[in-house]
């Protein structure tokens, strides 16, 4: 009697796409209120000349980021390529806008906004770095940015006996 082959249960694309949509909706549900709160607080900081409003504004973003990380942990997923790209783009755009503001805005405004916004952006980067260190450890975190190591595009380079790159 021949042994029965184990039946492979394929995960259908449909199930995956539904799960993907559910996760996407959860992430958006976390970020949307946080972005609104951050906008209100940032506006208050701009109008009121009080740095605590900026602290609260960046705090709202950090809380949302923590919510995103928690959602990833609960659903056992990571940041998608789209999320990474969007996050990086927004952070770079915000940094560029900040630099442009320093160059072209009146001195009074620059002196008032330079410290809180600069520190806020710096803290955002720091939070991302810390979360990566916690999630992946120092070595794998560094490898995420190690493009030189990741320059072999051949599929065979991923095989373990070839070094298991990527």
């Amino acid at each position: 009697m021949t042994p029965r082959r184990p039946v492979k249960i394929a995960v259908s694309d449909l199930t995956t796409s539904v799960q993907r949509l559910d996760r996407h909706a959860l992430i958006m549900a976390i970020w949307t209120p946080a972005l609104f709160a951050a906008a209100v607080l940032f506006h208050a900081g701009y109008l009121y000349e009080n740095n605590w409003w900026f602290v609260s504004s960046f705090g709202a973003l950090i809380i949302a980021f923590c919510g995103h990380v928690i959602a990833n942990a609960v659903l056992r997923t990571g940041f998608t390529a789209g999320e990474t790209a969007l996050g990086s783009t927004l952070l770079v755009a915000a940094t560029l806008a900040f630099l442009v503001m320093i160059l072209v805005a009146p001195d009074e405004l620059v002196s008032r906004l330079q410290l809180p916004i600069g520190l806020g952006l710096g803290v955002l980067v720091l939070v991302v770095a810390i979360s990566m260190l916690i999630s992946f450890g120092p070595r794998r975190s560094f490898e995420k940015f190690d493009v030189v190591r990741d320059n072999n595009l051949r599929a065979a380079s991923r095989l373990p006996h070839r070094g298991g790159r990527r």
Partner: protein
Amino acid sequence: MTFLLVIIFGLMFVYALYFAAQTARLGSKPGDFLNAGMALPSWSVMFLLPAIGVAALGLERQLLLVTRYGLQASHVAIGLVTVAVAGVLIWNRLWVATRLASLRTPGEALGRYYDSIALRVIMLGLCVLFALPYSAHILSQAAQLLETATGGTISRSMAVWMCAITLAIPAIIGGWRGTILVLAMQALFLAVLLPGIMLFGEVVLGGDMFPTSPMPTADGIFWDRIPGVLQAYGGVGKNVPTGGIFTTIAISSTAISLVGIMCSPATLYLGQTTKNGKAFAVGGVWLTGGLAAGLLLLVLPVVAARMPDGLAGYANVLADIVPLAGVAVILLGVVGSLLAVSFFVTGGTLILFSELVHTYLFPKLSPAKQRFGARVGLGIAFFFLGLMAAFMPFVSAVFASVALPLALQLLPAIVGFGFMRWISRGAVLAGIVLGSLMVIFTEPLGLILFEGLFVELPWGRWPLTIHSAGWGLTLNLLIVFLSSMVTLKGPDRYQRDRFHNEMAAHPPTSMGRQGLLWALAILWGFLAYGPGAVLGNFFFSDPIFTDLKAMLGVPSLWVWQSLFWLLGVVLVWWVAYSAGFGHTHVSERKPIRLGLPDSTRTPDWIKSGLKRVVNRNGGDEIEGDPLAAPVRVLRSDLETRQPRVKPGRGKIKSRK
């Protein structure tokens, strides 16, 4: 502020449209449009449960009541703990039964279990009540707020139609899943807005306000006390109660009326269509009993003390400082309303379609046609919603007032379905009828009708400060218990026993624990919002065990509320986690069938009624079937045609 408000609402519409389109593009089965494949994500239900509880209370209405009556009105929010307990218990049993007996809608669940078409019809009536007048009333109030906030730039009727259209389009595209995914975000938005606005107002405006100073209520209102256990009060419109209307009996009956939202068809449907997991536990314990009740008890009075002129006035004050903050205040009032409207109209219409159109009118509809039909139904429902909200606000308000108390009259039926097998069909129906009559005659609907047609009644709305839900449920329970006692061994008992025996295979708890649990729940209810709550008036400021006075700096009642809110969270935790009602898991047991098999045939009386109107078969069936001849059709040639009768039929044959 108007411009910012329009932009924010535009963005919210785009958000809803985006998720509706994403859901529609999933390529899932057409039937999933109606029930999300019975697998709504746990997190969405978890966030929605507290928002539905708050919708039952009505955020703007609750703010106005607290502004007017102070902490006695705020005390009602403890009822959210009861909502959480009821939600966890009811959803758990319904979820299990749905998977065990292949039930699609709450009407089907109750109808099959009790073998009663009447219960299905009652459930359909509630669907319509929540989807149209109840939602129209909420929408009308939200539109009124928008008109006031924009200084008339956006008129009330324009706001009504704008909201109705922007809610309808995503629902028509995305169906049940698309709607729920968007509403979950709005629920989270509300949870951020309420504490955010409180903190912002306190920081920006400053000043000596509640809790360090008294709340600015009218003279003669006990803002920091509950005005007794019960008052000899004729009802709203008859006389004025001393110290305020919220006696402990008023608080407890109003708190129990909130459970009506858990008995509403759309909320039951939400529980049915959830994926297995811990959504009920997390949503019930931490988000409803914990977060929502806590926010309403601790944060809402602080916000209410700052808005004697209502939300619009407060929005203008904050908008002068930071325009976006003013928009946030308006969003607090409007988003909660739109969430409730979208939920009840979409849920109600989908249930109505499944229960009425698909089950009775067109049972042979293919899944694609079901989806199309549901989309048409949603369009019609939102149109009528806009119509009622724009042109019939008074009628909507009158009918809306009975929605929650009437839904609560289903509680004995649901308890029988989930827990008590000895509750019989006759008892449930008798209880619903008499309980509903009691509700109607202690609310404006019955009072206006009766007093308009006959004589003036000696009582008004909520006599003796007892909410209509309390009056109705008391009579209902009395009838149900008495009737069930005499029908303990009725012929329909076998089916109920069979069902409960199967349900017992999925036990969430042990009997010993249940006894202790219910004893503590009753004790908690007695002290939290029952007659024992009056102890809280002075318990912490003038302790009875010493002559010394405590200098708390805050009202004793506020501390009492906070204490019993925390104890309430422990109670819900016990129900959900320790007793296990908060968890659902897929069972491997063989499914059972309740009642008769599904019919793919339209009932004759509906079929003949349809033929009267549409003559769908062109008369062929009637021509070939002499039994169908009495049915009138709209074709003159068939009207005059005689049925073919075999010659000699009916004659007595002579014996040879």
